[in-house]
């Protein structure tokens, strides 16, 4: 909390701009922004928009690392702009929209693909045993909760998609974020929908497109560890497969 957090320095931002109505392709634009040391990159962008160039477009809302809007590439790494601190960067800071997604405009990426995939993996509770409100809550021990809680922390920021090269090479890959959420429900003691979700994720476009690069987990701002979720789905699907084909008399 020392005084030098308030210190101001000129920071060079190199921002990728793309205006679909006038540009054929994106190009970098340089800005010099007076930044306080305690600022995050989002503060710098907000300053820029308010004072230097009101035409810059980007998404943000919560400024507290929870709404998932402000994902962008900062010096080539997918980051939340409200989590990346200016003081952690030296020299020119390069800001681009999330990799692997089409650019709508400036730093705004088209999220349609991710939204469609999210819906596809059925990320909602499909109850194993139906309960009415009058029956009260399902019982779930802290231990059972811990089994899936980590995967429930996903803020849908899509950073993992921007990091995963396999998604970049094969866009039909359902991808780390959505599959982790499917896994979250599969691991929930109240759920009975695993078979339905497997139809989507135990497929070639599902986990089998993942080659365990692990980049997704390295960049995830919420420590969801999608790489782990995907490998677990692979292991479980393999067990399923062998049971189904060689020991079909064993009831799952």
């Amino acid at each position, binding site marked *: 909390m020392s005084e030098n957090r308030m210190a101001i320095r000129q920071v060079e931002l190199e921002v990728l701009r793309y205006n679909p109505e006038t540009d054929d392709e994106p190009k970098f634009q340089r800005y010099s922004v007076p930044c306080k040391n305690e600022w995050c990159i989002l503060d710098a962008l907000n300053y820029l928009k308010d004072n230097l160039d009101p035409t810059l477009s980007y998404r943000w809302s919560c400024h507290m690392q929870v709404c998932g809007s402000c994902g962008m590439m900062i010096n080539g790494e997918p980051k939340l702009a409200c989590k990346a601190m200016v003081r952690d960067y030296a020299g020119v800071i390069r800001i681009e929209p999330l990799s692997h997604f089409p650019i709508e405009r400036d730093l705004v990426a088209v999220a349609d693909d991710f939204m469609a995939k999210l819906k596809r993996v059925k990320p909602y509770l499909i109850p194993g045993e139906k309960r009415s409100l009058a029956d009260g809550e399902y019982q779930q021990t802290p231990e059972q909760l811990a089994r899936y809680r980590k995967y429930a922390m996903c803020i849908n920021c899509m950073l993992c998609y921007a990091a995963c090269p396999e998604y970049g090479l094969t866009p039909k890959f359902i991808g780390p974020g959505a599959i982790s959420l499917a896994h979250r429900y599969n691991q929930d003691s109240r759920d009975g929908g695993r078979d339905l979700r497997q139809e989507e994720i*135990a*497929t070639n476009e599902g986990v089998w497109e993942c080659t365990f690069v692990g980049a997704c987990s390295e960049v995830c701002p919420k420590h969801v560890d999608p790489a782990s979720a995907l490998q677990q789905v*692979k292991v479980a699907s*393999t067990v399923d497969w062998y049971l189904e084909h060689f020991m079909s008399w064993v009831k799952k």
Partner: protein
Amino acid sequence: MAKSNKPIIWGTFAAGGELVSFVTPVLILLTLLAAVGHVPDMLGYDALRGFAAGWFGKLVIFVVLFLSLWSQAHRLRITFYDFGARADTLVAIMVYALAAVGSIATLVFLARL
């Protein structure tokens, strides 16, 4: 969308990867010693032939070679793709055929011992 058949091979990839990680470095070390002229006792003709003659020795040799072949074949398939060779089906047929030939050859050679 149908579930994938990849688990068949992936099972051997996972098991093979685990095994290869545990034993391959030390095996390379052994043959490296042989390569620089210090043949370890066990790699001598009599010792090795004796080991491979028993059913246990045969089993060990087969498991190591089989899992190693299939896991590396699977990884090779992915590597081709990662280097930009998109003919995945062709690559898959090729690498798995190699692994299959290698596995059968192992069986044949072991049977002759």
